[in-house]
């Protein structure tokens, strides 16, 4: 067994408590250890991805127990890709948090960061449905702490809503797992896939209920309309870097949908094409709501949140095909939209920290410091999220459009994607021109005396080169994704092929079990 598989979970699980217990009062030490741990996770994730390139599915049996009884961790192409993405975004955004001084504004930022990464890594690696629930809870608990980092009335109120919504989601998750367990008698994902496939068609009513409940749970995490109500206020009110990290959190829900509805409940099993039939309209409405929100927001953070919602919609349109081209386009767009959403949130935070009182309202205010470079970063992130050339979003949208060409109602889907793109462009353009250009007209006017959005804290270092570099790194990620589009697309294609043929995955878990307890 390859013991490196468990390290992405164990490493942050050790570093987190170490930071809380050993270096609570020393921010410098916290920064050094936490950044080193995240960088190590990135290196490890890349190394695991190299191992997964060949297509072999690796299994790690915790405690060396035999498969359907013990918990397994699985590494295939999709899991490796998600690990790399999480570590990459985690590292860039963490450097931003350090550079912008966000980590100074409250307690335990770095410890919570490590716990968050632990939950995310575990959710991508695990091959056991109940273990997935546990890792979901870990990442949620950490995200509750990060969400209300540095406090403030509206942030706490939005945080309470976020926690309650997700608690309801967790109850639903447990109910779904209970239903599936009572129908199949197992919770190991590979074993589930086998038993679901063998189940007689007359005996699947409870199982179908479980499958749909599970889809609802993942749709809550992915923020698909009509289960998206937690997202706008949470993302708009969370600290900027935390909202940027949350870009990967919606992707955990998408990952769950991809994993369960290709492995356990594929289109030819009990639920037939039910998942696709529900998810596609939901994705289209999500896209419309998201892009309308971009146009209609009066608050920069809320605009970025709706842009994130729109990108989830586009992504889900591709994934809901559950066919090879759709999954390939979806995986590509997943990588792109995570980078673009994180970059947009960081660019918005760059603006907010330079405005009086941290104001994110779309109102004319005096010009900000370093307006040139901040505007360039905002422009690049906006191009990325709107899907304009030359950045990777354009290729992603092309791939999504291409993948639905054979679907029913292709004209409607294309029209919705293209028209809503225009809405997003209009919304982002309006925001950019208002913040950066109209500001010059207001130069001489007295600054409006509004109550500050952010609770008072030490003055942020305005130049903050590290924060600018970290945002630029995410933009550079999109540029690299465009430059190396060929290899990445081939990897996405190989990943999709691995997903629609789950036989080797099941084989790896349940057969070849010599030397286990």
């Amino acid at each position, binding site marked *: 067994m390859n013991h490196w598989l468990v390290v992405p979970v164990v490493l942050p699980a050790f570093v987190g408590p170490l930071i809380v217990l050993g270096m609570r009062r020393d921010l410098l030490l916290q920064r050094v250890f936490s950044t080193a741990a995240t960088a190590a996770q990135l290196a490890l994730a890349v190394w695991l991805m190299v191992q997964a390139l060949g297509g072999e599915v690796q299994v790690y049996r915790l405690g060396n127990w035999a498969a359907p009884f013990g918990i397994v961790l699985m590494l295939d192409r999709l899991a490796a890709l998600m690990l790399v993405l999480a570590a990459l975004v985690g590292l860039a955004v963490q450097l931003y948090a350090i550079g912008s001084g966000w980590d100074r504004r409250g307690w335990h930022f770095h410890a919570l960061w490590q716990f968050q990464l632990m939950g995310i890594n575990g959710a991508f690696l695990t091959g056991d449905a109940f273990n997935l629930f546990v890792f979901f809870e870990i990442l949620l608990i950490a995200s*509750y702490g990060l969400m209300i980092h540095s*406090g403030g009335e509206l942030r706490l109120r939005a945080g309470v809503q976020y926690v309650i919504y997700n608690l309801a989601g967790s*109850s639903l998750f447990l109910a779904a*797992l209970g239903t599936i367990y009572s129908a199949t008698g197992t919770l190991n994902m590979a074993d589930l896939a086998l038993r679901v496939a063998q189940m007689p068609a007359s005996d699947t009513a409870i199982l179908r209920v479980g499958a749909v409940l599970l889809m609802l749970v993942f749709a809550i995490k992915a923020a698909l309309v009509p289960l998206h109500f937690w997202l706008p206020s949470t993302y708009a009110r969370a600290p900027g870097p935390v909202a940027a990290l949350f870009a990967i959190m919606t992707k955990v829900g998408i990952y769950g949908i991809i994993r369960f509805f290709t492995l356990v409940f594929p289109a030819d099993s009990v639920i037939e094409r039910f998942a696709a039939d529900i998810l596609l309209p939901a994705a289209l409405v999500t896209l419309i709501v998201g892009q309308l929100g971009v146009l209609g927001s009066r608050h920069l953070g809320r605009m970025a949140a709706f842009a994130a919602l729109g990108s989830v919609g586009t992504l889900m349109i591709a994934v809901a095909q559950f066919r090879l081209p759709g999954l390939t386009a979806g995986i590509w767009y997943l990588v792109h939209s995570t980078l673009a959403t994180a970059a947009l949130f960081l660019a918005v935070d760059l603006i907010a920290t330079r405005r009086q009182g941290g104001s994110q309202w779309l109102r004319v205010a005096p010009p900000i410091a370093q307006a040139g470079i901040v505007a360039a970063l905002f422009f690049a992130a906006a191009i990325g999220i709107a899907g304009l050339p030359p950045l990777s979003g354009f290729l992603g949208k092309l791939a999504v459009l291409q993948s639905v060409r054979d679907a029913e109602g292709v004209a409607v889907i294309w029209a919705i994607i293209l028209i809503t793109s225009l809405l997003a462009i209009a919304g982002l353009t309006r925001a950019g021109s208002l913040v950066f250009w109209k500001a010059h007209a207001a130069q001489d006017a007295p600054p409006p005396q509004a109550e500050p959005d952010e609770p008072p804290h030490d003055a942020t270092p305005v130049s903050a080169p590290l924060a600018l570099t970290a945002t630029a790194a995410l933009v550079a990620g999109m540029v690299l994704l465009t430059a190396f589009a060929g290899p990445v697309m081939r990897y996405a294609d190989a990943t999709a092929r691995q997903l629609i043929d789950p036989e080797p995955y099941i084989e790896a878990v349940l057969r070849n079990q010599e030397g286990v307890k």
Partner: protein
Amino acid sequence: MEFLLASAIGCLTAAGVYLTLRKRSFAVVLGMTMLSYATNLFLFATGRLVIDRPPILSEAAQGYTDPLPQALVLTAIVISFGMTALVVMMALGAFVEGGDDRIDLPRRDRRGPRA
């Protein structure tokens, strides 16, 4: 027995959903607690209801009850208990900072402070 348990779960869920939809955070926290009780009972019942059987294989006993849901329930109870404590603390924080315990966001979350 099945009827009793099923109706108990149903009542708890109904009360939980009703309370969760209230607009004061105290009622919502109570509602979440009831929902998690209902879920835990449901999870416990997924291993089928059996009386007087040990959760391990034993030659002396006549049968056994499925131990896995019991382990799952234990995990779920710990997590939901911790979560309830956390949401109470956060609701208290919002109450102290904002002056009331309404669960919905005030108007200035969407419209902004008056400039």
